């Protein structure tokens, strides 16, 4: 987030949007009113430091809690937690493994991302660069509204409305494109990973679209005007000026969306017919399960070992999310010359 290292792009204040990242922050005069500012600075520094530290403290507390609660169950486990595809932790001989759950979680989230990202970028570009101002305002409002819909509503809509449509679509895909690895498998459709992915895609669409729109709005007008002045069409201008500038921001938005998809609980629990399998046949009923949905469905009736097992699965989800975020950070760091948007 090194604002100071950004090249000073524009000199025309009329074209600058407030808060645009390409505006160098004027450095504060360091000599004037030293003592008076010192006190205020110190207070602010202390407050912001404690805010930052509390965040670390919360993360640490969650991690410690998960580990402490998971250890007894993991010790009782008669199967291999990391490699087995069973989930029977309430048995007298508890046996549970995370593979199927972790696979289903990542698969459904990645599919959701693949479905949501192109649409979200299209929506964001439409609002920021194509739509008339008034329509853009309405659309932006609708997008923010979609982001605020509770997930249980998406889940109920998914099972009552979408499932029937997905069954029809799945049958079609299976019949005409069954050779494609994802579309094979059993010919009972619905309540599948495919349905869960679509619901997740719809849920993360507004997050990605909303954040991307903000990033695209911050592209320096001078660069866009320069591209147009060189004879670029509007699409060429978006391709050469808007998208490269917005890339880190879009990646950040995507990771936020992926985080929500990975952790989504109740919507998946409602629409999915879970199975403890590692399968790419996303169209079939019983094509997988996710960590968060499994916790939601198993927690109430779990024994103490069962609860520990569910918490252990939560620890894995925590780790997956962490890895995803680290990867995202790494990508953004490599392109830190554009990183102002984050």
């Amino acid at each position: 987030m090194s604002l100071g290292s950004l090249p000073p792009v524009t000199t025309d204040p009329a074209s600058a949007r407030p808060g645009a990242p390409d505006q160098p922050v004027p450095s504060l005069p360091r000599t004037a009113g030293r003592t008076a500012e010192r006190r205020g600075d110190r207070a602010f520094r202390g407050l912001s430091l404690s805010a930052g530290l509390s965040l670390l403290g919360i993360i640490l507390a969650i991690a410690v809690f998960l580990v402490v609660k998971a250890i007894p169950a993991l010790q009782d486990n008669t199967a291999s937690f990391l490699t087995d595809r069973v989930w029977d932790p309430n048995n007298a001989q508890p046996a549970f493994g995370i593979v199927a759950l972790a696979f289903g979680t990542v698969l459904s989230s990645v599919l959701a991302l693949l479905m949501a990202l192109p649409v979200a970028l299209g929506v964001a570009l439409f609002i920021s660069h194509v739509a008339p101002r008034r329509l853009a305002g309405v659309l932006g409002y609708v997008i923010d509204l979609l982001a605020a819909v509770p997930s249980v509503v998406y889940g109920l809509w998914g099972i009552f409305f979408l499932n029937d449509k997905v069954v029809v679509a799945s049958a079609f895909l299976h019949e005409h494109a069954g050779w494609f690895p994802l579309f094979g498998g059993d010919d009972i459709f619905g309540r599948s990973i495919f349905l869960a992915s679509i619901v997740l895609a719809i849920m993360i669409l507004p997050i990605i679209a909303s954040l991307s729109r903000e990033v695209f709005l911050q592209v320096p007008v001078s660069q866009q005007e320069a591209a147009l002045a060189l004879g670029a069409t509007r699409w060429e201008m978006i391709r050469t000026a808007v998208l490269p500038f917005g890339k880190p921001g879009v990646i950040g938005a995507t990771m936020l969306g992926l985080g929500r998809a990975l952790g989504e609980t109740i919507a998946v629990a409602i629409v999915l017919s879970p199975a403890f399998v590692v399968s790419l046949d996303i169209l079939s009923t019983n094509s997988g399960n996710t960590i968060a949905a499994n916790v939601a469905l198993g927690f109430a009736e779990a024994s103490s070992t069962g609860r520990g097992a569910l918490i252990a699965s939560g620890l894995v989800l925590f780790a997956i999310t962490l890895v995803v975020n680290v990867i995202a950070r790494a990508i953004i760091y490599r392109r830190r010359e554009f990183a102002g948007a984050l």
Partner: protein
Amino acid sequence: MTSSAQTSRASRVLVAVSCVAVLAACGTDEQRPFDQASDGQPAGQIACADGSLTAAGSSAQKNAMDEWVRAYQSACKASTINYQPSGSGAGIEQFVAGTVAFAGTDSSLKDQEVVGATARCKGAPALNLPMVIGPVALAYNLPGVPELVLDAPTIAKVFSGVVTTWDDPAIAALNPQAKLPSSRIQPFVRSDESGTTDNLQKYLKAAAPAQWTFGTGKKFAGPGNQSAPKSDGVTQAVKTTPNAISYVEVSFAENAGLDVARIATGASAPVELTTESAAEAVESATVKGSGNDLALELDYATKDEGAYPIVLVTYEIACQSGNDPASLPLVKSFLAYTASEAGQDQLEGAGYAPLPSSLRKKVEASVQSLS
């Protein structure tokens, strides 16, 4: 769930007998159509105790508890009872931790749970008190087939993917009159962990050991079924999916207007699911607990005439002695009410069957012995 006033189908099977006399009596839960002597004011018989108590556990008896708490509190204004349907496992855990006065559970205490429960009761045994009988219906969606008979081996085959079409010889042999379609069976099971699932699997294991080799437990163990969360989830799935079949608490099936299969148990005729047939199965159960502990051993493979074999019995878990003195009077008073004839009759129409009277009297005696 709704009161019996809205459930005309529930009335048809479950409370058919009681509703014949006066239909209006079934609309108001306070009425007891059987026993004219105490009709009208069952709440008046409650020996009230004051104070407040918290209990937690099985969600299968949530509706029963709601009925009872409402009736008890309207009769005993100075009492507050809070039942949290957090699940059997969570309820027992809270009971052991001492945060609830009694727990509700779908199955009697297991060996590993007894240790903690005894510690909570300061060395005295924790009692399993059977309180609620919830029959499990095999509900199906098969247009044109309003009557269906199944037996345990066939059910086991359907829910393990061995029998896949409705006109399979195994089903046809049990239903010579029915016009069975050749369509594929869509069996639905619970995707969450549930006492209902546990019960069905215990039944299948006992009554069809050769066909059901997948074990028991609250998670459905058979292969390859579609699933949906909670009773309302599977009910909705069956209702919206032609050729579907599932197992749900009877009130859900009745409320959704689903057809319910009769069970061929080996008795002279297939058994229809009614309050009487469900109570009959519990009547033939043996008490495996000792003393005041009334843990039951249900005979799922029963061939008794008119005994419907797939029933869920939920228990209240309370300490024989060593209860918290502050809440003891209210616990005793409330459980005495739920075990009373008035309390049991209160549940009719809510999808439960009353305890058979011999067992009910034993439960009442056990409740009186709490200290």
